[in-house]
């Protein structure tokens, strides 16, 4: 039973908040480090930048146990069906952060070998720019995702448009995380 099935009224309000709080404070990422961005993702999980304070330090190898897929790196033609397969194996509610410019748009590799943007394959919730995005940018995109979960924007969007992947959105699109200058 997901939040989408609830009749929204004042009684279920605090229940919704509780569920959203639980969801955003223990998002478990799936290991999907492909290239250079994977090293920055690992650095974000390590002690200096520490994803553990957000409840995200365990990267689940099995997509069945994961909530979030951080596509970290360039997606080649051979890898695209694998990416889709892993995404489909994840259980709802699931989110995707496209980390780095290669995952977001093909990056500097505008050629035959790289899929020009992972949103051609899976629906992306947050795009994270950078080559590679530093740990601070990645954390900002994760916190943006948490904010989207907190305001329920994601579940409302999915409920309205039918949920699942491969759907085009008319609503204001996903947010772009921008690293704040020091």
């Amino acid at each position, binding site marked *: 039973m997901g939040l989408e099935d609830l009749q929204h009224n004042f009684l279920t309000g605090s229940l919704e908040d509780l569920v959203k709080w639980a969801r955003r404070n223990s998002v478990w990422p799936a290991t999907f480090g492909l290239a250079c961005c994977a090293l920055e993702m690992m650095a974000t999980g390590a002690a200096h930048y520490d994803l553990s304070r957000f409840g995200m330090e365990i990267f689940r190898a099995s997509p069945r146990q994961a909530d979030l897929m951080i596509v970290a790196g360039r997606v080649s033609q051979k890898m695209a069906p694998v990416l889709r397969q892993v995404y489909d194996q994840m259980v709802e509610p699931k989110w995707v952060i496209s980390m780095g410019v290669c995952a977001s748009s093909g990056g500097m590799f*505008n050629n*035959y070998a790289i899929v020009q943007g992972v949103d051609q394959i899976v629906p992306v919730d947050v795009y994270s720019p950078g080559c590679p995005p530093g740990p601070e940018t990645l954390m900002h995109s994760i916190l943006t995702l948490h904010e989207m979960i907190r305001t329920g924007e994601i579940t409302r969007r999915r409920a309205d448009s039918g949920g699942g992947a491969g759907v085009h959105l008319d609503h204001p699109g996903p947010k772009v995380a921008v690293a704040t200058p020091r």
Partner: protein
Amino acid sequence: MSDTDVPAGEVAVEEPALIHGFPSSLSHGQLVVHVDAGHYLELVTALRDDGYAFCADLTVVDYLLAIDRPMPTGVTPERFEVVVNLLSMDEGTRVRVRAQVPESDPTVPTLFGLYPGTEAMEREAYDMFGVVFEGHPDLTRILMPDDWEGHPLRKDYAVGRIPVQFKDAPGPR
């Protein structure tokens, strides 16, 4: 030790010196031997017996757009060139073999029997250029998906850019 095979002070000669009967040249201090596809295996075997027991690299160059490149006398330039870099660990010297492979019959014998390390290198050369290595145990694509059509690094294969929405900006080429 340096990676040149020629003692310092020796002037490059007009006629290329013959290594095992094949013309050679110096490219920025590096010894290069030119051969045709027919005698390629014979030359590499001879070099291996000379002490070049390590095959550092095997690759192919597609000279479609530069077919009339400067070559030593006696060497007919072809479209494809198989380039093999060999290394002698005892001497610390390198030698490069450039074999001319025609487009009409892009086949050369495999070096797998001499250097097992060329297995992956030859598969990559086949995948990227379509040069067939006769006798290779498993000549299938290695980098592209198995059902990919075309050989990407050939000069007549487009880069595959998609148009990007920058106003009036020309691409790199």
